[in-house]
């Protein structure tokens, strides 16, 4: 985990006290809501449907057990006993009282956390692969560069009032577990033929009402050029990005209207200046960050760890399912990456109670060297679990309902809060997620269906990433009733794609049956070992349409 400098500590404390003064003036009536709103948003405080909401940054998803315990304490003391982990690797508290929020910010400062830039038209919390630092397939640890970007982007005076919010994501490999193709800037670490480390730079990806896949603006950017190049991209966007229409203000629209080659030329021209003004990232910068990245001390690996796990697996099919879906290859022998599912059957995706947070923190200390990561898929990752300890961890996770063997399966549903909480939403998402989860409760069936991502958004803003779901659901209001539009074929990764809407939307009573019908169609038509994604690519939408809208296919039949 990274550790704050003295300056960082002092700064977040001062910022909390500054906000205390602002809250006090608001409560006394000295500040109007119009005056106060931009101030609270700069500190992550929204006004949602039922209450204020505080969004706390978890930089590139990295969380220590001490930080998780603090989140539990905040949930219990100032909120209603739970927190909600989001698709941006952040955590949201849904019921804080305004007068308490400065105290909460102070509590967060105790554990090197804050809510600065978790809202507003600025560079938001930098996100990264949730397997960063331990993934067997990564080129190098992206957290080093994520931290460089975090420092550069935090309170950057020139980029505090951008045309619109700006999101940057990093991936340590082509595997892309961070949806880098759907961020304003996506950075994919890679080595060139000379063995130098650098980035493939993508610009102009995003979801929302105008989903677009990011385009490559640099095939290979050497790592020392990272900040000067980012500065150039942001500067061009800040200067010529549209401010007349908030729906056309993201950099993806600028790219679309300007054209890729022209935008690249503008960035390169600006880069000539920023190379001089910003300068290169140096070996010394890297060394400084590495010195604050306290790497875990891996103990000796138990002999026979693999054999022990294999024996347990043979005796326990539920454990075997969990091993298959919830654990992944680690870069060190004798270790596995474990994902705790925050998607129990019929549960609320991303919710964790205060008690669960404390228990997760204890388990992270016992099994994962005190470290964890929040994934954009709303789960918690234990990055350093000994192979020999897997059965014991699984047993303990079952006791707190976090061992559902459904990661990457149909029960692992991403869902935005929807209209149950969000003031922008047009429909609810969570109840639909829960009903789909219950419909596919049987884990044997989930594993038979195999890899699939279901993603649900309660409005066109697409916080639930429905555009990139194998099955995406978008809630739409039809004359005061909740309907859900299905799309198929979305995916993240190097072959990223935006899903295609399959046809007219389904009512809330019909939507679960519609998902069931899609799955049944897949199961009937798939070839041996063919994933849902591959089947949709091979078959196209026609067989799914025929099943979902049979009245339109009478002639074909």
């Amino acid at each position, binding site marked *: 985990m990274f550790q704050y400098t003295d300056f960082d500590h002092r700064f977040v404390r001062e910022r909390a006290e500054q906000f205390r003064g602002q809250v006090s003036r*608001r*409560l006394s*009536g000295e500040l109007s*809501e119009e005056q106060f709103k931009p101030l609270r948003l700069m500190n992550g405080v929204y*006004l*949602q*449907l*039922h*209450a*204020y909401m505080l969004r706390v940054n978890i930089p590139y998803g990295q969380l220590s057990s001490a930080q998780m315990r603090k989140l539990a304490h905040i949930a219990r003391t100032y909120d*209603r006993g739970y927190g909600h982990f989001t698709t941006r690797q952040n955590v949201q508290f849904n019921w804080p*009282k*305004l*007068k308490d929020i400065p105290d909460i910010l102070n509590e967060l400062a105790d554990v090197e956390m804050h809510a600065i830039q978790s809202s507003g038209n600025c560079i938001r919390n930098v996100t990264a692969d949730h397997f960063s630092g331990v993934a067997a397939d990564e080129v190098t640890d992206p957290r080093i560069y994520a931290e460089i970007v975090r420092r550069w982007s935090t309170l950057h005076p020139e980029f505090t009032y951008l045309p619109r919010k700006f999101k940057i994501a990093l991936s340590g490999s082509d595997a892309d577990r961070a949806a880098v193709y759907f961020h304003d800037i996506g950075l994919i670490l890679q080595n060139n033929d000379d063995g130098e480390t650098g980035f493939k730079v993508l610009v102009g990806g995003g979801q929302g009402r105008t989903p677009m896949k990011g385009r490559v603006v640099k095939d290979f950017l050497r790592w020392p050029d990272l900040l000067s190049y980012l500065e150039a991209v942001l500067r061009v966007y800040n200067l010529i990005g549209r401010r007349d229409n908030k729906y056309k203000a993201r950099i993806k629209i600028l790219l679309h209207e300007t054209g890729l080659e022209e935008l690249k030329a503008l960035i390169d021209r600006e880069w000539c200046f920023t190379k001089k003004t910003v300068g290169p990232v140096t070996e010394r910068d890297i060394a400084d960050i590495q010195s604050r990245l306290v790497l875990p001390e891996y103990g000796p690996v138990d002999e026979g760890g693999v054999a022990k796990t294999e024996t347990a697996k043979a005796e326990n099919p539920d454990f075997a399912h969990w091993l298959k879906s919830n654990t992944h290859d680690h870069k060190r022998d004798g270790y596995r990456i474990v994902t705790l599912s925050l998607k129990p059957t019929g549960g*609320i995706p991303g919710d964790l109670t205060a008690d669960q947070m404390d228990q997760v923190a204890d388990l992270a200390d016992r099994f994962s060297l005190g470290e964890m990561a929040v994934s954009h898929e709303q789960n918690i990752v234990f990055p350093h679990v000994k192979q020999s300890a897997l059965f014991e961890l699984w047993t303990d996770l079952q006791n707190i309902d976090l061992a559902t063997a459904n990661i990457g399966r149909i029960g692992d549903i991403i869902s935005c*809060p*929807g*209209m*149950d*909480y969000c003031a922008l939403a047009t429909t*609810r998402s*969570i*109840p639909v997620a*829960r009903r789909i989860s219950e419909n596919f409760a049987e884990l044997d069936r989930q594993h038979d269906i195999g890899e699939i991502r279901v993603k649900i958004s309660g409005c066109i803003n697409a916080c639930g990433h429905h555009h990139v779901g194998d099955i995406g659901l978008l809630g739409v209001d039809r004359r*005061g009733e*909740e309907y859900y539009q299905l799309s198929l074929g979305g995916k993240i990764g190097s072959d990223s794609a935006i899903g295609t809407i399959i046809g007219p939307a389904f009512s809330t009573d019909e939507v679960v049956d519609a998902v069931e019908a899609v799955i049944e169609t897949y199961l009937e038509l798939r070839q041996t070992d063919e994933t849902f994604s591959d089947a949709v690519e091979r078959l196209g939408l026609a067989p799914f349409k025929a099943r979902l809208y049979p009245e339109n296919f009478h002639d074909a039949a």
Partner: protein
Amino acid sequence: MSDKIKAGNNTAKVITANRLSDGFVVFLSPDNKWIENIAEAKNFSAVELDALPPSVLTKVIDPYGVDVDASGTPVGYREQLRAFGPSSHRRFRRCTGKFRLNNSTCVPAKAAA
């Protein structure tokens, strides 16, 4: 700026807002207090928000009028969620007074019985 709130045909209005101190959804009572229970809210046929005392308005954010039907239930699922709490978390549902929880939905007590 005057924000005149008029009820539709055959409906009444209640005035709602979010309370400044905690953001909670509140409704205006007959004695100009902001209360959490919609069942005790004052029904209006028409009201000028500007006519309310400033001391009432400064305690809340963005007051506006909501149509309610004859049972006092707000019209539309958004306003029902605001009045009765998130349907996703049953323990936060607020069905009091003349409303009862039926499955996960708040309904007029008579209908539930």
